[in-house]
């Protein structure tokens, strides 16, 4: 198997996937052409991400980075969540195979898109 133990753990983890009813922000990124689509849901209270979930169509790396990214932003302030980079997500997973690095980009983009959606609704 070309994935790290941490990637497989996050891939198997059930805690972070699903949807949030009446989410305060939703980010939809990726496309089916290259095979990865990620939706990020946020619940925000007083600038703090109180809950976050993902729904992902994609490979092991895409699902694992989704799960890891959710774990990294839950309970964080919006400003802190915006500082979560794709590099940080990949490092937290003990690395990704080079051809899978684009999956970690998706996680960063997904978080940003969800936060932008939240901010556009709450100005």
């Amino acid at each position, binding site marked *: *198997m070309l*994935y790290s133990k941490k990637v*497989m753990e996050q*891939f*198997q983890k059930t805690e972070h*996937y*699903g*949807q949030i009813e009446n989410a305060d922000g939703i980010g*939809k990124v990726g496309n*089916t*052409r*290259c*095979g*990865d*689509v*990620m*939706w990020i849901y946020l619940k925000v209270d007083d600038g703090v991400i109180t809950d976050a979930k*993902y*729904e*992902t*169509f*994609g*490979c*092991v*790396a*895409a*699902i694992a980075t989704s799960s890891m990214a959710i774990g990294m932003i839950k309970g964080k302030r919006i400003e802190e969540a915006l500082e979560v980079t794709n590099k940080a997500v990949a490092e937290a997973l003990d690395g990704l195979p080079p*051809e*899978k690095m684009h999956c970690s980009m998706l996680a960063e983009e997904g978080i940003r898109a969800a936060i932008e959606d939240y901010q556009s609704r709450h100005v």
Partner: protein
Amino acid sequence: MNVSNYFDYNATTPVDPRVLERMLPFFTERFFNPSSFYRQAGEVLADMEGARAELAKLIGATPDEILFCGSGTESDNLAILGSARHKGSGHIITSAIEHPAVLNTCKQLQKEGFGLTILPIDSHGFVSPEDLKKALRPDTILVSIMWANNEIGSIQPIAELAKITREHGALFHTDAVQAVGKLPVDVEAIGIDLLSFSAHKIYGPKGLGLLYKRRGLRLKALVFGGGHEKGLRSGTENVAAIVGAGEAARLLSAEMADDAMRLRQWRDHLQEQILAVIPQVLINGDQEPRLANTLNISIRHIEGESMLAMLEQFGLALSSGSACSSKSLDPSHVLLALGRAHEDAHGSLRISMGRFTNETDIKQLLTHLPPVAARLRQISPFWRNQQPQG
């Protein structure tokens, strides 16, 4: 032999223990170079030629029409490059669902100035003889169409395609890597000029390709050296592999029909059960004639590599046409040619069975596949959003 939960026989087969037993002496006490002078070498040469005869018999050829080389890919290369370069110029026809060993070789010839037409397939995976007729040009020198497809198992109307090609005066090559050993192949009856196959798909070892070249047909060599294989493929022969492949061919002549019958029943059972238990499954290559051992499905709204990884947790070994299971970012060119959407091509699963597949394997797969599909659908944004309740 215990190869449990293995469903990737189209990728490679285990070496049959009877084949291995036949091979082993050629690594040790019978290591001799068949080109050498002394008695022991002569005996090795005789065994090698015996293997050539068995391999020829398996496909209805004569022994002098069988060439040994390093892989199925090399066999395709030698057939296509060798015949085209011998002609010097002209037009080549192939199909959209060929193995990269054929497609990329034809594209190489295009770069060298040859004309190239790539025929489409219909939504069931078949090349149309009418399309071939229309694509033929006065300068067409070679047509290369695979006998059976490695991903979806569709079997092409080879007899008709070969007849059309030969009546036109062009050469007909077929990549029969997935056909030989799975169905009866008779080059003489059908009228084929060049046919490629491989030892490791027929329970022989890796590292041996075979090329049938009709007697009298001229090719340009790709490898130069001591003039082995009538100057067409220099290099000391991979004797152990050749003897093993000969034994594999001998076993197939006796066992192929029974194997195919058993596998067809399991394949049909798998298809029926999967369609009954998992909603929204597409069959890729859904019509006969198709390989008895192969079932290719798209489980809609989920991705193939994730399925492979989850099934792997239960020890189940399969393959997928998703981009993530390959080096490229595009999913299977075969499934796209079939007209599948990218999403469905990414969500494909290939189940290919063989000689050592047993009923326990089938049960294991049917036990684990439905919950894996359900779990990944829970994660997928597409599954929930296409449900009527929204």
